[in-house]
């Protein structure tokens, strides 16, 4: 494997570019189509210590039918439900045959501060319980101390443990702090899985955050990661997926992200196979804006189911 070139990032210009996507005017049909697209890209997530089977079941129902009310044109199901490993069985049972994926965080989420064998066992257990997508965390301690080879090797082993399940690699960009680090970690993660064997489009995603650290996803950070994905595509033809997670709460903000993906990677990435939103509260704002577009009226938040 040829070591990749260092890709420095200029923070002023990357922020300026990211801000430029927010000035696109997305109205009428484009807005409604964009909202539907965003709903189909959601990883509906609950990652709390107090999660219960009941809450997971409610989330799964919401995932398959995001809006229960009368609507001309049914709302598409979301892409996946994302839970802790202990709830995978409950989710898998609810989602079999629905087309909605079962994603599980693993590898000692969210800190990853466990021995590698424990993290790998975590992955295997989640896959055996029925998860077809694994959201792993990288070893930030090793990354920040410069032990990049170690981080890459761990990612390779996790990818092998996935055993056919798709992998989302969480960089936890809020802990990496600089755009240079975000870019380096993105390149490192992509190259680690790429070196482990032939990749298909959408087998692997890179993901911004666990949602447990602030700041979570931001537009400039996501842009830097999209640029790493684009560069990998230009040199190999393989499409890596992207998942910003945490902090995206409004339909307007989701549309800004879609604009950024469209103009950085192209329309080919505008599918749940290659782009996801990790979110919990975003869903109902998307629904609310969709119904506003269809009916001309805003509905109350209590008109939408909570989970």
């Amino acid at each position: 494997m040829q070591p990749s070139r260092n890709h420095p990032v200029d923070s002023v210009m990357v922020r300026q570019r990211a801000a430029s996507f927010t000035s696109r005017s997305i109205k009428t049909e484009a807005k409604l189509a964009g909202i539907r697209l965003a709903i189909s890209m959601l990883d509906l997530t609950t990652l709390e210590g107090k999660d219960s089977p009941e809450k997971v079941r409610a989330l799964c129902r919401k995932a398959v039918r995001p809006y229960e009310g009368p609507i001309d044109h049914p709302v598409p199901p979301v892409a996946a439900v994302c839970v802790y490993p202990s709830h995978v069985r409950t989710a898998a049972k609810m989602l079999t045959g629905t087309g909605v994926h079962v994603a599980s965080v693993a590898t000692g989420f969210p800190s990853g501060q466990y021995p590698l064998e424990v993290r790998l066992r975590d992955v295997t257990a989640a896959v055996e319980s029925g998860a077809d997508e694994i959201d792993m965390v990288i070893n930030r301690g090793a990354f920040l101390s410069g032990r990049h080879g170690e981080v890459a090797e761990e990612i390779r082993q996790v990818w092998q443990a996935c055993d056919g399940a798709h992998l989302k690699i969480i960089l936890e960009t809020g802990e990496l702090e600089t755009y240079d680090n975000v870019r380096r970690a993105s390149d490192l993660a992509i190259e680690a899985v790429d070196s482990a064997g032939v990749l298909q489009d959408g087998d692997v995603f890179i993901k911004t955050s666990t949602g447990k650290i602030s700041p979570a996803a931001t537009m400039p950070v996501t842009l830097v990661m999209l640029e790493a994905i684009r560069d990998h595509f230009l040199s190999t033809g393989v499409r890596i997926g992207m998942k910003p997670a945490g902090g995206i709460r409004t339909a307007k903000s989701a549309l800004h992200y879609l604009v950024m993906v469209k103009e950085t990677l192209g329309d080919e990435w505008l599918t749940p196979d290659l782009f996801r939103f990790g979110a919990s509260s975003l869903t109902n704002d998307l629904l609310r804006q969709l119904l506003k577009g269809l009916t001309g009226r805003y509905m109350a938040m209590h008109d939408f189911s909570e989970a």
Partner: protein
Amino acid sequence: MNPTASDTNEHHTSPGWDYSPAPERTPVELDESYGLFIDGAFRAPKSRKRFDSINPATEQTLASVAEGGAKDVDDAVQAAKAAQGPWARLKPSERAKYLYRIARRIQERARELAVLESMDGGKPIKESRDVDLPLAAQHFFYHAGWADKLAYAFPGRTPRPLGVCGQIIPWNFPLLMAAWKLAPALACGNTCVLKPAETTSLTALKLAEILREIDLPPGVVNIVTGAGETGAALAGHPDVKKIAFTGSTEVGKVLARSAAGTGKRLTLELGGKSPNIIFADAAIDQAVEGIVSSIWFNQGHVCCAGSRLFVEESIVDEVVDKLRHRMQSLRVGDPLDKNTDVGAINSAEQLRTIERYVDAGEHEGAIMHEVSADPLPTKGFWHRPCFFTGVQPSHLIAREEIFGPVLSVMTFRTPEEALTRANNTPYGLAAGIWTNTGAKIFEIARKLDAGVVWCNTYNKFDAASPFGGFKESGFGREGGRHGLKSYVKF
């Protein structure tokens, strides 16, 4: 158009999502015909000549505009001369109030003015709204601040106004250039006769409306529309004490000759063939953004456009690939659509010039790259953004100013070679450096013959920052204290 909207029952929608048309709908009220703005009122031209101002995106006539003759110019200069004494004697803080009022009124009518700027000139509404108008207002605000503080701008000296200033502006940033010219002149106690460019007179005439709304004393600013002859009459008028010109080097040279020996002050902001230098250690993706804004901003109708790109040889393939990729996402079309990135070419004549250069580039053996995406509108004047590789420094497209969305890409191996090639031009207006190494920035920047050097950015403007060129790009500065100096004597 929109596959995702029609098959939402499918879990996996087919990729694709396009933006709906987003036309800016703010109405603009235009008269059928406009007179000359002299001594505080619109009047019919004594020349009895008129011409039409058209929308370059549709070729539709927007309004009939007066073509000022020598007699009209003389009337305007006499009005300015009569108004100059009282204007200069006005309490400086009172002069400042007028400038503040102009600035505020521009802000209040910003959207309407932006729409008109895009209709008359072809530039995307995104740019007229976010760049031209805010900067135009800022220039008046900034110079309003100086009006009663001139003694502090020139410590130990006593600045006095020059008299009547004849100001001739180009068609690429019509209202903004009017602001660049008028604001410092007025702040220093001069009065003005402004001659807008032939193809873009309308926002200047709207500015005349604003000057009336804020009760600017008659004669302080006069606006005489017309073409080259009108400008020549203004520049040659014996009572004009100062000529400020922004435009082509060709006309600049004519003006310099005509002003020689007359005692008139002269500042010229002329053409450019500005170099953008990308080193291998640069942040490439951000540098590519910089290239986009340096050559395709305002259809490349920018005097400081970074039209020569020098890329360190080891990264040229990467830069070219990324540039081509990025070019695909530029949206060319209706200037009034809020999502348009590249609008219409300003005039049929300018389009012919651009096409002539592009033909010459291909003829001389350079390789043209453009993206042929959606078809261009059938009416109007259009040119897709493009760039050339395989360009030799001796090629016409590497030497002459094209003033269009056409970039010439060349390579270099060492910093010394980059510098030599960058400076190998009759022009010296602007330059860009892209590197992640701080020391390199300082080393290269001080050796570049350019009035403005941007480092890891491009096309950034501010009223406080002087702008102007070396060599055949002209002399004199606009903006900041340097700019004030062009409008005073000691």
